[in-house]
């Protein structure tokens, strides 16, 4: 009995080491949070539109084609950094992109889009951050891919970079 107990620490240690090794080898991002809304219908909303003189209604915008939704704000620096990728997505993939302007000043946003280019076909105004709460947004920038049935297929927290761009391209090819 006693003989086995003295070997127990090394066995437990071995198991824990293997778990750590596995976690290191698989490509994973520890700060990634899976969305509870994945594979579910988008939360619907009606709000003001920044670009058009009519109400922005999610019923009109989703459910016909694949849509990328991007939560952004002019006061958020990473949003500025990732902006070029949305211009690229529009040019290279010809995809519909909808912006949700989070807790921002509309005038500033219009100017911002003028200087950086506007990849968005429509921009919903989320002055109080209510839409972001419904969508379970963790922090902006945040990007969702919604398929033609209005179901969320992908979510990314944080700015888009080259790697994420490729990931989104793959997903677009899959669900298109």
């Amino acid at each position, binding site marked *: 009995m*006693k003989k086995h107990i*003295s070997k127990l620490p090394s066995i437990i*240690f071995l198991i824990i*080491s293997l*778990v*750590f090794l596995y*976690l290191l080898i698989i490509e*994973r991002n520890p700060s*990634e949070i*899976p969305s509870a809304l994945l594979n579910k219908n988008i939360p619907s909303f009606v709000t003001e539109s920044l670009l058009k003189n009519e109400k922005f209604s999610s019923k009109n915008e989703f459910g016909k084609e694949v849509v990328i939704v991007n939560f952004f704000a002019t006061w958020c620096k990473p949003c500025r950094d990732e902006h070029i990728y949305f211009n690229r997505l529009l040019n290279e993939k010809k995809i519909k992109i909808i912006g949700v302007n989070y807790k921002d000043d509309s005038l500033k946003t219009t100017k911002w889009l003028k200087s950086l280019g506007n990849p968005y076909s429509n921009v919903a105004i989320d002055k109080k951050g209510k839409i972001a709460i419904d969508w379970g947004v963790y922090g902006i920038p945040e990007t969702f891919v919604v398929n033609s049935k209005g179901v969320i297929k992908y979510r990314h927290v944080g700015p888009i970079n080259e790697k994420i761009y490729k990931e989104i391209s793959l997903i677009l090819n899959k669900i298109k």
Partner: protein
Amino acid sequence: MLAFLGLLTLLLSLFFTIFQFFSSRKNNLKLISISVKGLLISSLLSFFILIYLHIISDFSVINVFQNSHTTKPLFYKVSGVWGNHEGSMLLWMLVLTIFNYFIFKLYNKNNFLFISKSLEVQSLITMGFLIFTIFTSNPFKTIIPAPSDGLGFNPILQDPALAIHPPLLYIGYVGFSAAFSMSIAALTLGVDKKINWHTYMKPFVLTAWTFLTIGIALGSLWAYYELGWGGWWFWDPVENASFMPWLLGTALLHSLIIVEKRKSLQEWVLLLAILSFLLSVVGTFLVRSGILTSVHTFALDPSRGIYILAFTALLGGYSLILFGIKSKAYSSNTYFSFFSKEGAILINNVLMFVVCSVVFLGTIYPLLIEVFTNNKISVGEPYFNSTVIPILLPAILVMGVGPILSWGKESKLKTIKKLFPSICLTVIMTIIVFSIHGSYSPMGIIGITLAFWIISNNLVILYKRKFLYSMGMIVAHLGVGLLILGITGSSVWQIEKISKMKISDEIKISNYKIKFDKIDEIKGPNYLALRGNFTIYDRKKNIISRLNPENRYYPITNNFTSEASIHTNLFRDLYIVLGEGDLKKGWVVKIYYNPLVMWIWLGALTIFIGGIISININLKKIK
């Protein structure tokens, strides 16, 4: 040029380490002496070269470029050296070689083989960390052309408490390496050599434990006033990584006393010594490999993770398998009486070990779940509070009794008689406090009673007799009593108020009225800030203090930080944090009323002083 010299000193250290390994295998005292001293000098050199590079802002060195800036105050230029991954590895190395030197200093006629073996193991550990530093985290890498200025240093880390937090913590972590090496040496050599390994191990364990305590306390103090969350402990994975070796270190320290007096529990102590250091290394692994996220996480690099894991696995595999094979020689079957000093220590030992396992499980549970189910969960405060506290309560109860009991068996009646004065004292003190305070809650009463239980037991010992030997213990235990007082007060009676305040608004918290006078824009040495002006009145409308929380913006690193403003006295802290807002709508203001927080810091300091006293006493015993 200087950076190249820095790299050379690192390689020189590696040479001396290898040299030490072979000369200690051969038991050649002269060669050992050369290698130990050479290692110490070369690691000192590389450390000071890096400090110098930071002071003169040599941005051709990537490490300086990434972590410093010309506008940074000199003090933080120096502390910035160990505020990043590569530099902190150099500090870790330096502490390791200093301990290496102190082990070498223990040489005498009787322990020759034992110390040589310890130095051999120590050189292997040093080698592992050195190779890691040189090949994956070289702080002396350069860039051409040199950038004109650095990227700056995370402003949240520009803080005096945080500047000395890592060195103290490393003394703690690395100090356990000496215990580890000695444990391996004792296991390899076996019992027949008749070495008093525990007398050599004890000062190192004491040093490690004492500095780990104050290091953790300083980190906690920093989190308290810098993060602006109103609390001082968040069960963050990295906090846990330092708490676990501390728990095992506590158990180790106390069991060493049993080994010393009773010659039993040797097997258990050898295991604890191995585990304490392994947990320190696993903590480093968790922080630096990026498999867990936390406020402490350094820049991520998977190759580093793989290396540290391989190293930890080697270290752990070797030591634990060795333990599995060789520990039988040290096993003994002794039975302890429940009412004896060793009985009390043993109970505490088991409880500390259980707490450590519980914290370990909570820390890696999210990882296990992810591996086996692919779900992501996080384990937080509710888990730790509801598991750790109930186990710690009996431990504290026993801790009060332990020092009063004698070695060997004692009758129950006699024990109770001995405890009678402190029981009375505890009851009296508790009644006084609650008759003044007048707020009752079960946790509050339990916590305060336990704190006074520890304090009065130690006061009784202090009053009854003056034996110098356990002076350090009495002081340290008193510190724990004070610490529990602070922990209980600040967690049970904390009041939190979050509200939107406009200029000249008033808010009431406990017996105080706080008025928001105005807001100023100010300019600091390397930041801009909004500063709120608050006046605090007591019930009779006397001004108690003015508090100025700030919202700082650091343009170089593009960071925002909030500086809490705190008014402290022995009974409570008033803690104000300024949030977002503007003149029209007002600002979000968080106000905390934190009772007895001061006692947490005073308690930790008292424990530290007690530890220092004990270290001195134990060093005298060796000589």
